[in-house]
Every structure is written in C-alpha cells, then in structure tokens.
C-alpha cells in the first residue's frame, strides 16, 4: 500500500479546508464585527408579515400516493422499453423474449393490482 494514492486526493482535502474555513469565517465575522441589538420583533419568526395560519404539512388521501406509485412502475417499464426497442436488431430473438418475459411478469402485477381494487377511485 503506497501513500501516493492518498497524495492524489490532496487537492480535495485542501478544497475542504478552504471551503470550511471560508464558511466558518463568514459566520464568525458577522457575529463579532456586526452590530447586534436584538429585540422581540427582530427575533420573532418572519413570514410575509403574517403569523402562520396553519401547519405547512397537510394530510392528503393515500389514494394519490398509490396512483403515483403505480404510475412510477409503468413509467419505468417505458424507460426500459425505449433502449430495448433501439437495439432490438442487435440482440435478436433472445432480447425479444427477455422483454416479453419482463412484460409478462409486469402483467401479473397489473392483474393483481386491478383485482385488488387499487385502481378504483371510490
């Protein structure tokens, strides 16, 4: 094991030191040099001039989540289909049947979600 491997990473270490130093310097300088006269108004939370009306996190129906997840699955399927379609001439029958197998397994999943009622909105 030689140290030359680590030497190659020296610029990154220097970068980290400079970046960290600059960040700490900025915070420290504003803390030490800047004038600070805190009062309750300054310290209170500021959001468009109003007090917050409600929680920013709101509950929503899990159905939206389910649809989004199901969408992702079939979206990914398309993402696999495009490169497959482009190189289909090179990968021949084996490539063709591999994709058919993949689509078959996805279809099983599709039948499952349909029968389970995941696609019913009500």
């Amino acid at each position, binding site marked *: *094991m030689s140290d030359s*491997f680590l030497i190659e990473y020296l610029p990154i270490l220097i970068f980290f030191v400079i970046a960290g130093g600059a960040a700490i310097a900025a915070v420290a300088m504003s803390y030490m040099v800047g004038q600070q006269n805190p009062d309750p108004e300054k310290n209170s939370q500021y959001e468009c001039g109003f007090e917050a009306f409600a929680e920013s996190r709101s509950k929503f129906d899990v159905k939206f989540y389910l649809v989004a997840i199901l969408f992702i699955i079939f979206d990914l399927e398309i993402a696999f289909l495009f490169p497959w379609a482009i190189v289909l001439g090179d*990968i*021949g*029958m*084996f*490539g063709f049947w591999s994709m058919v197998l993949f689509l078959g*397994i996805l279809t*099983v999943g599709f*039948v*499952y979600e349909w*029968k*389970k009622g995941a696609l019913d909105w009500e």
Partner: protein
Amino acid sequence: MIDLALDGYMSALPEIFLALSGLVFLIAGVFRGNSGTTFLCYSAAFAFVFSLILLAGVNTGEAFSDLFIMDDFARYIKVIILLGAIASVVYAASFLKDEQIFRFEYPVLMIFAVVGMMVMVSANDLLTVYLGLELSSLSLYVLAAIHRESIKSSEAGLKYFVLGAISSGFILFGCSLIYGFAGATNFDDISVLLSGDNSLNIGVIFGMVFILSGLAFKISAVPFHMWTPDVYEGAPTSVTAFFAIVPKIAAIALIIRILFEVFPSMSEQWQQVVVFISVASMAIGAFGAIAQKNIKRLMAYSSIGNMGYALIGVAAATQNGVYSVLVYVTIYMVMTVGVFGIIMCMRKRGYAAESISDLSGLSKNSPVMAYGMAILMFSLSGIPPMAGFFGKFMIFEAAVNAEMYILAVIGVLLSVVAAYYYLRVIKIMFFDEAEDRFDCDIAFSRRAMIAISVILIVAFIFYPNIVFDGAMSASLALFPK
C-alpha cells in the same frame, strides 16, 4: 447469442420453478381472495418440496454468462434454506388461522423471499448478489408489516425497511468501489485481479468493508443489530420464526462466498473485521438477553449471539472453519424451528402470550411441551449430548486449529453467560408457581414440526454424518485444490 446467454440455465431450475409458482399463486390468490390463504400456504410448502427434488437433480456449473454458480456449497445451503422455508410456511398456515390474519400474499411473499435467498447463495457476480438480496429483503419488509391492523407490526416493517435500505446502500456503495478499483463485477475476475501484486488496493479494501457491513446488517451482527429485537417483537410470530430460521443462513453463506472466493488474498484485512463483529455480537447477544422479559426479544438476542459464534468459524479463514460454520447454522436452524414452534403454542384464551413468565409452571400444565423446550434450551446453550454442543464444539475447534486461542476463549466464556438465560427459561418452566394453562388446541402440523425438531436434536449424536458429510463436501467446493 441465445446459446451464450442461456447456457446452463438448467442449473437455476429450482429457482425458476419457484419464481413461476410464486407468480401463479399470486394470480390464484387474487382471484380466490383471502379465504384461500391456508390452501396457498400448503401449496407453497409443496412448491418448496418440489424445488428440493429439482435441486437434487441439478448439475453443478456456471450459468447465465457466469452470473450464476451452482456448486456443492450452494446446493447444501439451498437445501437448508428450503427445509427452513417448509417449516416456516407450515407454521404460518396454522398461526395465521389462530391470529385471524388472512392475507394470501403471505405465502407468495415467502416464495419470493426464498427465491431471492437462493439467488444470493448462487451469486457469482456483484450484480447477482444485489438482485437476490433485494428480492429477498423487499419481500421480508412487507412480511414484517403484514399484520396491518397492529401498530407494532407496522412499526417493525417500517424500521426494518428503513434500516434495511441503508444497509443495501452500503452494499451498493461497496460494489461500486470494488468495480471502480478492480474493474470487474464477476467474482472469478475480481479474485484473479486481486491475486496479483497490487492486491492491497485501499479502494478495494474500502469496498469489501462496506459490503461486509451491509451483510452484517442482514445477519444482525453487532454493531448493525439494533433493528433485531424490535422487528422480532413487532412482527407476527410466524414471520419472526421465518426471519430467525432462513434469511440469516443465506446471508452468512453469501458472506462466506464473498470472503473466501473473492477476497481470499485479503484474509488478513477482513479477519480483523470479522473477529471484532464476532466478539461484539457474542457479547451483546449474551448480556443483552439477560434483562429481556419478552420471549421473542430473548430469541432476537439469542440469534445475535449465535451469529457471533458462526462468525468465529468465518474468522478462522480455513476450510475447517467454513465446515464448522455450515454444521453450526444447520443445527441452529433445526433448534430455532423447535423453539418458535413452542413460542407459537403460547396462547391463553385465544391470545398470544409472549412474556417469559407465561411459561412458569409449564412442566405441570403440559409436561411434554416443557421437556421439549428444555431439550431445545439445553441444546441452544451447548450442553452435551444435544446437537447444539457439537456445533459450538466444532466452531471452537476450528478457531483453535487456526491458532486464534483468545477468540476461542472469549467465545467459550460468553457462551457460559448465554447459558444463564437459556437455563433461566428452564428454571421458570420447572420450578416457578404454575400459571394459567395454555390453550391446548394445537394444530397437528405444528406438533409434528416441534417433534421433528426435538428428535433431530437428540438423535444427532447417533447420525451426525448426514450433516457432516454434506457440510464437508460443501466447504471443499470453496477451496479448489
């Protein structure tokens, strides 16, 4: 092209059959609804049995462009995995009926988990490792949370998922480091590349340690054990039994294959890591279990400790060490089957009783169960002539042969500590005041499984060679002459 990619796919026939049967069961289940759960459980058991038969006829060799390897090591581990899976799914059939958890996805998920583990064991490429690991892990996450109405079960599933995802991230990061520095993902290629002069590349060592940490999570070895007690306690007992019996065997087999086939040239580096993990697991397993009141949490710490013992054999880094690990996990699997069968029998007035004190006075209420549990506890604590003694003995012998005396001594001392809480269970059953009786309508299938487990543990001393011969040929497969 087709010949190149499908070469030797017959080697994967048991996995292909199981995967297809999983898909068929999924469709059958969704059309029949949850009322078919029990039927599907037994169908899954038959699928496992059939897969076992296929496994016996499969030829050794590499398949799918060397992504997949079938050798005696993989065959031995797969046999144990399938036997454990059969026991778990038979338990599940009666347990789900007791608890009124009817979800036909349960046996289907078990099948997919087992397929994933079998792929893991046969992996000959980092990509195959990840594929198998994720297939089994994702199924296990859902299984842990299968009892949706129970907050604890959901909590167990979520905890397991979040921590499991992190460990998968570790493994992927390790794989990418190894690929980056060694330039290959195939096990054969990596081991050839690493056997040269530049074998001690620091990047590869980093990658190996990351993969090892991720896999240590899967076998719940310290310091990656924190999820185990919570998940074991929260998950439905049949799922806990499955967790304790099967996935750890697959994960430890994968550890052995990666360390001994890919990184044999780095044994000095990984031995330190494995020794630490092993000692820490034994210690946490022994001391952590002492204060437990819940029997499922007790078994969680017990499994942490037992993985520590198994890792002693790995740390020895010899063929003898691998052999002893294989014998150890086999015996551990059989003992766990029996213990969890009895835990599932702990029901009072239709509800599961999970506290250790619920066992008090069991020797008067149902002596047969008490003696069965006593035999299993004696075996777990390693008292001769039960099978558990031979497992521990061979592990320590392997460590001594590899001149790791300190490790062996620590192991023996900590097994004395661990004996305390196993013997405490026996003391509670035989000497404490009798509590309410357990419900006595125990399913025949569960009785049969417990009986088989206890008989195997006691009779091991008469027919040890069945296990020894299999483990010996399996371990020799990893050490080419």
